């Protein structure tokens, strides 16, 4: 259990000449939910994209499942069954919901298993079944988010990366999505989650990292981080009402 599924080892990454990550290290163990929280522009999304080599790590290395993937082409990294529901959802707008799901199934590399996986994700997100023939671009924000997660799940990932799954969504839908993540994790899926919604995220996660200006400044279990006053001050201000409400 203690072996890492993904290990990011002192990775530095830049956009052009502008450095964004300054020696970031973190690891994700099999079966965990790991959260990365931080303010806007801290480098959370970049950390996630660097796993796929976009941008490439200019220093350090990234090891997945015992294999150094630092220099692998993006599509080959994905084909190791790392699936991402990326920032901004990136639904293929002029493809139907079904076609979007078919795109997600590529990395599973198992056409015979398609129907089974489809059943699984439509059980999780029934609305997608009703919208199967509708174009991705015509879905509402919440539906698109569900589609993005469902598309990632269609790849039967070993590691699921979720970038701000709660962004811009109604609280009820956020709740649904977080419940779905929890359920998937119970079935053995390893999840790496980037969020600004720190309270819910840290409640959900086994472990968390806090990122500030391209550096990891804190790490610990979700509850440990929630108890830290610097975390509360920096990321939970807006949520304090909620904290009182729930007695946390």
């Amino acid at each position, binding site marked *: 259990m203690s072996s890492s599924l993904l290990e990011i080892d002192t990775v530095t990454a830049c956009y052009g000449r502008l450095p964004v990550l300054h020696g970031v290290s973190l690891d994700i163990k099999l079966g965990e939910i790991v959260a990365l929280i931080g303010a806007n522009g801290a480098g959370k999304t970049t950390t996630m994209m660097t796993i796929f080599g976009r941008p490439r790590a200019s220093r350090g290395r990234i090891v997945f499942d015992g294999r150094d993937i630092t220099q692998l082409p*993006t599509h080959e990294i994905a084909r190791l069954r790392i699936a991402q529901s990326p920032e901004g959802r990136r639904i293929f707008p002029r493809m139907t919901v079904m076609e979007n799901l078919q795109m997600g199934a590529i990395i599973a590399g198992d056409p015979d298993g398609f129907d089974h996986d489809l059943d699984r994700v439509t059980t999780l997100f029934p609305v997608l079944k009703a919208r199967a023939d509708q174009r991705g671009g015509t879905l509402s924000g919440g539906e698109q988010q569900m589609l993005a997660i469902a598309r990632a799940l269609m790849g039967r990932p070993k590691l699921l990366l979720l970038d701000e799954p709660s962004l811009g969504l109604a609280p009820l839908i956020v709740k649904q999505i977080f419940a779905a993540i929890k359920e998937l994790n119970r079935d053995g899926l390893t999840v790496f989650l980037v969020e600004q919604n720190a309270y819910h995220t840290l409640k959900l996660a086994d472990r968390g990292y806090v990122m500030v200006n391209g550096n990891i400044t804190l790490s610990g279990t979700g509850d440990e981080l929630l108890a830290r006053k610097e975390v509360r001050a920096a990321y939970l201000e807006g949520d304090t009402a909620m904290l009182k409400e729930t007695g946390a």
Partner: protein
Amino acid sequence: MAYFLQQLINGIALGSIYGLIAIGYTMVYGIIGMINFAHGDIFMVGAFIALIAFLALMALGVTMIPLALLIVLVVPWRSPPSGAGQWNASPTGRYANPFAWRLITAIGMSIVLQNFIQVAQGARVKPLQPVITGGYEFFKDGDFTVIISNIQILIVVTTLVLMTAFWLIISRTALGRAQRACEQDRLMAALSGVNVDRTISLTFVLGAALAAVAGLLYLLYYGVIDFFIGFVVGIKAFTAAVFGGIGSLPGAMLGGLVIGLIETFWSAYFTIEYKDVAAFSMLAIVLIFFPTGLLGRPEVEKV
């Protein structure tokens, strides 16, 4: 009336050829947002490969068109003039302005292909004796007989078959989905495990294969080709692609037909010298009222 019908038939045949070439422009534009300026010359090379194939086959006593068609389809698949090479050669994403890089490469490719054929095949017009002759009397009106020639039937049928095949590839197969994914969101396509570079190369090759078939049909229809035909026909097909809405496959076909018909009718009823002016003016007028072409999608989209 009979005269009109005859022109309609001629226009459709010519428009089909434009349409086949326009598909290549539109597909490549759709996927990398660049006009492949070498595309017209790939059509020209296709016509020359067909000419050589026909001459060789005739020397062997064979006059089977399907065989030549097969050669035209297969040869560009692995040979450098297919245009796939020009994409692979470009350092995608590593330079600040890949757009200029590709554009210049495409124009360079166009010049190379023209000059290569000029040197290798000579600058003179190359004739081919008619391979497909005959036709059907379709309609008689006094002295005037409307004829659909066999070659016209071949052109339209080939175009219809290829269009259908392409439409099926794009809309139903995994390759087509990968192509559309690269067109809509290249980063997400890569994150989904699609080899973007390979998909783009394949798109070039598929477009080139269609242009090559168009070259074959052009050769059979007109019987004469030279190293420079790619320029004017290429520009016309490009116009057709813009006319129909660049990025849209049905639009390319429709645009091809419209350009073919305008050109034919203008030549028939007005002055043949101004047929190109007519076609291009029509484009300008259409773009005023439909800035994205007849079947093009509007730029604004809910994402």
